[in-house]
C-alpha cells in the first residue's frame, strides 16, 4: 500500500501539470472579458489599454508559462521567505500571481477567505455527515418503517429543492419575521469572548444548516443503500448466529463494510469545501472561496480562477488518493499492487 501511495503521488505531478494546462486553455478560450463589468462610458481604446496592461496582448503559451513560474516557483519561495525571514535572491522584483481584478496577490486573497470558508462550509460538511450517517443506518436497519419513509422524504426534498430557495426561505422566516439570526455574515467579526462566540454561532447557523441539509440528503441516501446491500449478506447471518450483540453486528461489521461508497462521496466532497459553496455564500454574503471564484469568473480574472481551480485540482487528486487508501483499510481484500 505504501509503495502504491508513493507511486500515485509521483504520478500526480504530470497529471496535475496537464490538468493545469487544460484549465488554462479553457479559461483563455472563454468569451468573458476583464473589462465587461466596467461602465459603458469607458471608451474602447481605454479598454484595450487596460487589457494590454494586464498582459492579455501576449500569446497564450507565454502567459501560461509565466503563471507556472509565478505559481510553482515564486510563490513557494515567497512563502519560505515569509516563514523564515530569509531573503532568497531578488525578492523585490519577484512577480507573484497577481489577480487582475483586485491587483493584489492571489495567494493573499485565498488566505483571507480561508477562515469563513472553513468555518461555514467545513462545519456544514461535518454537520451533514453527522446527521447523514445515523439517518442512513437507521433507515436501512428499519427499512420501510415510518422513520425510513420520513428520512426518504426529508432527504429527497433536501436534495431536490435548491439551496438558493432554502436559503431565502430561512432568511424570510428567521431574519425577517422572527429576527433571530442576522441575514448578512460579518467577516470582520472576531471571536474573543463568550458574547462574540455566541454571535459567531448565530451568524453561522443559517448558512451551515442550508448546506448541511443538502449534503446530508446525499450522503444519507448512499449510506442507506449500501447498508441495505450489506445487511443481506451471509456474514451478517453468521455474526448473528455466533451470538454477537445486534449493536455490534450493525455498527462494527455492517457499517464498516458499507462505508466504501460513503467514503467515496465524502472524499469527493472535501475538495468542494475548499471550492466553497457559491450559492449559499452569495445568499448569506459569507464571501468565502466560492464567492471569490464566482466573482473571478464573472470578471474573467484568469490568474485568480486558474490558481483557485488548480488548488482545487490538487485537493481532488489528493483526496481521491486518500479514498483509495481508505478502501484498502476498510476492506483488506482490496489490493492495488
Amino acid at each position: 500500500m505504501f509503495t502504491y501511495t508513493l507511486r500515485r503521488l509521483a504520478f500526480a505531478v504530470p497529471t496535475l501539470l496537464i490538468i493545469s494546462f487544460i484549465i488554462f486553455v479553457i479559461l483563455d478560450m472563454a468569451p468573458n472579458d476583464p473589462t465587461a463589468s466596467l461602465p459603458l462610458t469607458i471608451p474602447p481604446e481605454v479598454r484595450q489599454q487596460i487589457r494590454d496592461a494586464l498582459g492579455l496582448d501576449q500569446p497564450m503559451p507565454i502567459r501560461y508559462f509565466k503563471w507556472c513560474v509565478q505559481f510553482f516557483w515564486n510563490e513557494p519561495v515567497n512563502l519560505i521567505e515569509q516563514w523564515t525571514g530569509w531573503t532568497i535572491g531578488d525578492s523585490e522584483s519577484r512577480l507573484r500571481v497577481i489577480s487582475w481584478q483586485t491587483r493584489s496577490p492571489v495567494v493573499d486573497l485565498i488566505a483571507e477567505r480561508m477562515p469563513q470558508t472553513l468555518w461555514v462550509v467545513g462545519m456544514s460538511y461535518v454537520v451533514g455527515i453527522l446527521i447523514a450517517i445515523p439517518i442512513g443506518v437507521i433507515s436501512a436497519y428499519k427499512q420501510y418503517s415510518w422513520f425510513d419513509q420520513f428520512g426518504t422524504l426529508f432527504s429527497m426534498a433536501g436534495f431536490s429543492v435548491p439551496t438558493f430557495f432554502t436559503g431565502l426561505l430561512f432568511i424570510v422566516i428567521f431574519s425577517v419575521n422572527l429576527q433571530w439570526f442576522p441575514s448578512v455574515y460579518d467577516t470582520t467579526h472576531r471571536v474573543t469572548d463568550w458574547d462574540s462566540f455566541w454571535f459567531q454561532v448565530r451568524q453561522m447557523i443559517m448558512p451551515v444548516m442550508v448546506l448541511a441539509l443538502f449534503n446530508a440528503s446525499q450522503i444519507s441516501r448512499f449510506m442507506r443503500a449500501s447498508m441495505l446491500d450489506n445487511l443481506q449478506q451471509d456474514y451478517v447471518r453468521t455474526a448473528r448466529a455466533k451470538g454477537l450483540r445486534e449493536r455490534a453486528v450493525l455498527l462494527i461489521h455492517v457499517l464498516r463494510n458499507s462505508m466504501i461508497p460513503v467514503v467515496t462521496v465524502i472524499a469527493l466532497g472535501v475538495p468542494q469545501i475548499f471550492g466553497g459553496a457559491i450559492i449559499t455564500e452569495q445568499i448569506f454574503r459569507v464571501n468565502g472561496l466560492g464567492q471569490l471564484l464566482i466573482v473571478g469568473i464573472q470578471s474573467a480574472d484568469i490568474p485568480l480562477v486558474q490558481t483557485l481551480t488548480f488548488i482545487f485540482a490538487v485537493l481532488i487528486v489528493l483526496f481521491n488518493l486518500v479514498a483509495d487508501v481508505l478502501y484498502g483499510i476498510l476492506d483488506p481484500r482490496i489490493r492495488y499492487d
Partner: protein
Amino acid sequence: MTDAVADTAIQETQHRSLWGDVWVQYRSHTGAMIGTVIFVAICLLVLLGPIFYDVDPNFTNVRDRNAPMSWAYPMGSDNLGRDMFAAILHGGRISLAVGLTAMLLSLFVGTFIGLLAGYFKWLDGPLMRLTDLFLALPLLPLLLVVVMLFRDVLRPIFGPELGIFLLIVFLIGITSWMQTARIVRGDVLALKEREFVLAARSIGTPPRRIIMRHLMPNILSPIMVSATLGVANAIITESALSFLGLGFPSDVPTWGRLLFDGKDFLTLTPARVIWPGLMISLTVLSVNFMGDGLRDALDPRIRGR
C-alpha cells in the same frame, strides 16, 4: 391434493421468466407502485395537459399580474400576468426530458467508466486520472466555451430549441458522471475480490460476462441512488444554465427556471415557488421510489424471499 400443488408449481416454473419475476416483485413493492403512479401521472399531465389546457404560457395579461390561485389561474400568475399552470405544464416537458436524458447519459458514462476502471487494473490509472481532470475542470468557463463553440453550429441543423436541448443534455451529462464512476469503481474493487467472482473467473468466465452477470447486479443500489440524485441535479443545473443565458431562451419555461424566477416573489405570490418546487420534489421522490423498487426486484436474494 399433492397433485394440485405440484401442478401449480409446474405451471409457475413454466410461466416464470427473469423479467416476469422482476415485474411480479416490483408490483409487490408498495413504494415502487406509488412512485410509478405518481411518475406516470406527472408524465401524462405534462404530455397531455397542454392539449386540454391550451393557454399559451407566454401570453402576458398585465392586468392580472401576481394573481393568486383561482379558477382563471389555477396556480396563479407571475409578475407579467403569465399563467403559472400553463408554464408548469409546458416547463415540465422540458424539465422531465432534460432530467431523465441527462441522468441516463451521466449514469451510462459513469457506470461504464467505473466498471472498466474497477475491473481492469491497467485501465484504472488512466480512467481515474481522466475522472480527476473532469472533476477539476472549472464548470462555468467550460460551459461558456462549449456554448460559444457549438450553439451556432447546432442551431441551423436542429433548430434553436432542439439544438439547445441536445447541448444542455450533453453538457449536464458530461459534467456529472464522475461521482457515479468513482462510486462504482470503489464497489467493484471490493466485489471483484469476493469468492463468487473468483469462482466465476476460475471456471473461465470471460470478463464481459463477469461484469454483466456478477458485478452489475451487486452495484445496482448505489447506481439507483445516483440516478435519483442525478435527476434532481439535472433539473436544477438546467435552471442555472438558463439563468446564465446558456440554456433555453427566456420564453421557454422550465421548472427550475420558474423556481428561480419566482424566488424573490416568495412573500408576495408564494404559489410561484411552491408549485415548481413541489413538481421537482415529486418527480425526484417518485424516481427514488421506483429506483428502490427496481433494485429490490433485480436483487435475486430479495426476490427469492
